[in-house]
């Protein structure tokens, strides 16, 4: 099921200006482009960790930011599941406490089943009592995904979820992302500079270059 995603805003960071004018209906939007093109900043603006200079950020019916209507929902009320590139698993908590961290604070009733579904989907049951420091790269990735999904987020934003994993591990984590898309139907905005990944997951691709969308469409352009 696709969702209307509006990313129409201007964000300034020092000398760098990011300007997007996207209104798309999609399940998975990929932000594709070289490093320094502003991909991570887009995700942080959606998660509420950066404030745009002006514009609108809307996911489905929910307005997260609108300079015109003076709406700026704080990060803890946005319900956007953010998996940053460094994952940022809480080092002082084990896997279970990491994954359950957000569960207390969201308002969804059907959570018990969803959470169990997430744990099964990402094959995390055997890892629950492990310490975060003892996990392999692929395991850390799955824990971070589960933690972000545990609050039944409106939208999942992922920053290069497969970067840093070797080829074999990528091939094993990618299907988990496909399952999240297909079985949980959580919409995603997803940063990558890997073409095969984008082809496998995204149904809309925004190519970023120097803070602007150089191309936007249902498929990756030939460059």
């Amino acid at each position, binding site marked *: 099921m696709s969702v209307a995603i509006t990313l129409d805003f201007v964000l300034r960071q020092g000398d760098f200006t990011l300007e997007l004018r996207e209104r798309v209906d999609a399940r998975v939007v990929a932000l594709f482009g070289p490093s320094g093109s502003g991909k991570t900043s887009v995700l942080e603006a959606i998660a509420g960790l950066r404030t745009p200079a002006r514009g609108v950020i809307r996911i489905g019916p929910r307005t997260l930011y609108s300079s015109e209507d003076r709406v700026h929902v704080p990060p803890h009320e*946005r319900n956007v599941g953010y998996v*940053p590139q460094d994952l*940022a698993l*809480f080092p002082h908590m084990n896997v279970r406490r990491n994954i359950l961290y*957000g569960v207390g*604070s969201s308002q969804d009733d059907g959570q018990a089943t969803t959470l169990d579904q997430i744990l099964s989907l990402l094959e995390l049951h055997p890892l629950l009592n492990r310490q975060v420091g003892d996990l392999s790269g692929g395991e850390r990735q799955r824990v971070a995904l589960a933690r972000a999904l545990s609050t039944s987020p409106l939208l999942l934003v992922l920053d290069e979820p497969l970067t840093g994993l070797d080829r074999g591990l990528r091939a094993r984590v990618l299907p988990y992302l496909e399952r999240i898309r297909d079985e949980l139907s959580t919409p995603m905005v997803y940063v990558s500079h890997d073409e095969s990944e984008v082809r496998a997951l995204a149904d809309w691709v925004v190519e970023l270059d120097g803070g602007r969308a150089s191309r936007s469409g249902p498929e990756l352009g030939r460059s």
Partner: protein
Amino acid sequence: MTGVVLEIAWRTVSMAALATLVMLPPGIALAWVLARRRFPGRALLETLVSLPLVMPPVATGLMLVWLFGRRGPAGGLLARLGTDVLFTWRAIVIAMAVMGLPLLVRAARAGFEQVDRRYEEIAATLGASPVRVFLTISLPLAKRGVLAGALLGFSRALGEFGATIMVAGALPSTRTIAVAIYSYTETGQDAAAAIMLAVSASIAFGALFLSNRVAAT
């Protein structure tokens, strides 16, 4: 003699412990604010907090005498509630807390500064309110700095002399180890002074040793 030594040692340690408890809430709050917030007057606040570290303790003591004297702003208020501060155990606790606070704030602040903001941000995206982020992420991750700071503040409180003698005097009921060493020496009771010195050195050694252990782990 033993009775008096034990009484003074116990008074010193328990007052220092109480002073540490008193300085922890404002100390942690100040440390967090200085580590995480940018606001006008921040440099001023930073300087004010560190002031007791560089001012003569006796001068800090005099300020406390004005503040907590019966005609002082804080002392007057407490006097109307029927509580005297100067020359009581309360004065000892206040002097110790004020003198220990800068050390606590410095170490705790360094602890908070070392916490990766990323964790706090991600906790917020998971729905945690700022208070919950502080209690479940920032504070536990800064634990070592806070603990080391508390032990440093405690150690400072144990040895506090200048401010204490100004606000609490050298009465038998308010004498701490440091004050006792001074008055025994003044009155020629060298043996008693030497015993107090040994007690003081052992307690200080223990506190510092523990503090270094905490900082190293």
